Structures are given as C-alpha cells and as structure tokens.
C-alpha cells in the first residue's frame, strides 16, 4: 500500500444538469504536502474540493482518504468528515456561538469530548491562530480575518488528516489577508497536509509544494511551483498567469 498518500482522487466526474463541471480529475496528495489549486472562476475548483468531503456527491470516480474509499456507499461519511478540515471562503462561523464555542462544538458533539477536555483543546487551537484573547467574542464582534482564523481553529481542533481551503482569503479586505495566510503558512511548515484553492499566487508559489492549474473541469498543468509559475508548459497556463499578474500586479 502506498504508505504516505493522504488523499487520492481518481477520474472524478461531476455534472450539474447538462453541464459537465468536472471531466475526469485525478491527483494525489502526500503526507505533509501543500497543494495549491488555481484556475479561472467557474472552473469547478470549489466543486472538486466539496467532492473530497462529499458535501457535493460526485457522479463518477473514486476518492480515498489514506486507505479508505470515501466514495464507497458503505462508508459512514460523518466519520470521514471529522478527519477532513474544511475552511470556507465566507467563514461560516456559527453566529450564535462565541469563538470558543465555535471551536468546542464539534469536539463535544461529534468527538464526544467532555466540556473540560474540549475547552482545553479549543483554547489551544485559538492560541495557535493567535486569538486566545478573543475566545469569548461572538462572530459579529470579530473582523473578517479574525473570523477566518477562528474557522481554521475550528477545523484544526478535530485533528484532521488533511485541511481543505476554498479561497480562504477571497472575502477579506486586502489588509486582513496577510494574517490568514500567515496562519496557513505556519500550518504548512508544521507539516499539515493541505489542499488550497486560491488566487493568492504569492502564497501558492512560496508556501505550496505542488500546483495544479485547472480549467473547464480538467487539470491543464501540474507541477512544482517553480515550474508552473516560471516555466509553464501549456499556453493556457501562461495566459492565465499573465491575466492574474495584470489584475493583482504579479505574484505577491
């Protein structure tokens, strides 16, 4: 058995109505690897990410988390999801709960931690994202960057095998993006396995180990960041990167 592969996606297909969104996507992510997925809007990046924890049901293809086929109908999907952290573009914090309770809820209700254990673990995760002193603030009392860091802490607390990020900084004001990327960079350096859908080319380039350029439901190009960013093999990749650097003034 391929020992250190955490996520394996094989020939993934998904259609909405007549439109084929994913047209056979395959890739693997190894233990401790940070994979960036880039590509134009509407290309199916979010759909792909959501298929990985089956928030969206794929039509065809297989997905493995370590040795477990999570696309199998016999699998208990709630057990699988506990092991996959998901960070949403618009945070999706529970509005009626404090930062601490947001992080604690899954530990207590899903993992069956006692309140004391859950509190300790949650405070540890909040400290990790630099928000221990905001433990008792409600989401509405936090900035966007702080909310996203709480949502990262909420996912980390479940002790996931892999973290999925769906454009985690796209809903943030420019001056708040840095603090979230900082936390993500630290995670990558600590060896967390991550898949990051992002428009932050600087982050993809300097933090990630591998980059996938996706367009219209297929992987157009894949490779280490130096290759994809500095020496792209496909004309479409070159075009896309050119457009992005026009928009954002080059890789930050």
């Amino acid at each position, binding site marked *: 058995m391929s020992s250190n592969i955490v996520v394996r996606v094989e020939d993934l297909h998904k259609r909405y109505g007549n439109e084929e969104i994913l047209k056979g996507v395959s890739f693997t992510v190894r233990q401790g690897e940070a994979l960036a997925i880039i590509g134009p809007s509407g290309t199916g990046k979010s759909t792909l990410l959501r298929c990985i924890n089956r928030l969206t049901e794929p039509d065809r293809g297989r997905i493995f988390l370590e040795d477990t086929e999570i696309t199998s109908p016999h699998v208990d999907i709630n057990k699988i999801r506990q092991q996959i952290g998901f960070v949403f573009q618009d945070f999706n914090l529970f509005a*009626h709960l404090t930062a601490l309770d947001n992080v604690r809820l899954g530990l207590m209700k899903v993992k069956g931690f006692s309140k004391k254990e859950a509190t300790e673990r949650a405070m540890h995760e909040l400290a990790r994202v630099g928000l221990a002193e905001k433990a008792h603030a409600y989401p509405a009392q936090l900035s966007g960057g702080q909310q996203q860091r709480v949502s990262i802490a909420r996912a980390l607390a479940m002790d996931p095998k892999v973290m999925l990020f769906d454009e985690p900084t796209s809903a943030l004001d420019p001056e708040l993006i840095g603090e979230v990327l900082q936390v993500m960079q630290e995670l990558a350096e600590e060896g967390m396995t991550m898949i990051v859908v992002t428009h932050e080319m600087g982050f993809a380039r300097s933090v990630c180990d591998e980059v996938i350029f996706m367009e219209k439901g297929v992987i157009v190009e894949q490779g280490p960041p130096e290759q994809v960013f500095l020496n792209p093999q496909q004309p479409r990749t070159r075009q896309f990167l050119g457009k992005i650097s026009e928009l954002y003034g080059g890789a930050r």
Partner: protein
Amino acid sequence: MSVILSWDTWRLLLAGTVVTVELTASLLAVGLVLGVLVALGQAYGPRPLAALCSSYERFFRAMPILVLLIVLNYGLAFLASTYELLWLRLPAFAVAVLAFGLHSSAYQSQIFRGAIRAIKPGQLLAARALGMTRWQAIRYIVLPQALRLAIPGWSNEYSGVLKDTSFVFAIGVTELTRQGWQIMQRTREVFLIFITVALIYLVLTYLGTWLLEWVERRWGVPGLTGQRQEEYGRVI
C-alpha cells in the same frame, strides 16, 4: 352605581383572568411545539413531508377559530360516544387548548419558517463538514438561532391569541371576557366592568410583551438578535 367593584366581582374577574392566562400559555406551548415541527418539516423534510406540512399550515390558517372550536368539541364528543372511546371525552378546557393550539401552530410555523430562512445556509454546510449529522446540525445550529430570531414574531402572536381566547365561551369555558359579561348581566355595572376587563387585557399584553423582550435580551447574541435597534434608529 358604585365606583368600586365589590370583592366578589374582583374574585370572579380574577378567576376569569387565571383561565385566560392558563389557556393562552397552554395553547402557545402546544402551538410552539407543533409549529416548530411543521416548520422543520417544511424546511428540511423530504418532499412528501414538506408538502404535508404546508397543507397542514394552510388548512389551519384558513379555519376560523370559532368553527374549529365547535367542530372539534362536537366531533370529539361524537367519536367518543359512537365508538365508545372514553379517552376522547376531553374536558372543555382541553378541547380549547387543542383547537387553539392547532390554529396557533399554523401561524407559529410561519414565524419560525421566516426565522429559519434568516439563518445563513453556509453554517449548515460548516456543521456537516465537521461531521455532524443532519439532525445535529438542526439541533445545535438552526434551532438555537431560529428560536431567538422568532421572538419578535411570537410577541405579536401572543397579543393576538390572548384576546382570541374569549371565543371559548362557545364551548362553555368561562374566561375573563365571559366572566365580565356575566357580571354585567347581573349587576348592570356595564361601564365599570368593561373598563376593568379592558385594563386587565392591557396589563396582560404589557406583561407578556415585556417578558418576551426580557427573554430576547437575556439570550441575545451580538449581531444576531435585535441589539438595541432603537439606538441606531435614533441616529438615522
């Protein structure tokens, strides 16, 4: 004509007030439980269940409460005697709670449905992504938020049903209005009784509304519930 009500009159009016309060509290409780279930069925149930809940809600909203009371009262008595189902022989008060409870549940389900709609749907995705079941997500995310958001709507429903309860005279339950009416017949102190009854309703409405506002503040969450809207209201 005396200007002060006799102790006896007060006693009767207070007895009526107690019935009104008990009836209102019971019907709101029955309506709350059923209303929440109907709203959850509409919002999260499978198609057939959602359709059933919608028909339920339309049916009971369309029924005039007086018709519902009388049909239920005679209907249950008829079934009880025809099929010898003794347990269906309910006291008039229980029939009243049932009829009003069904009626109110239809309205409350709509209050609650509106509250559910106001919850950002991404939160449910986030809950499922943590590994919660559908029911856990509803229990820990939807319910606590929707119940809070529903409070202003309930305040409205409370003051509405409080006065509607006077219809129970139709099945022989004597509450505040009926009690006042009977005293008027006897004593001819029409004006004084009328004013007193009206004042009692005013106090009940005020107390109930105040209680719900207190609950709303007590369980309030910044950014979710009506945090001192008035203060902003004065600014704009």
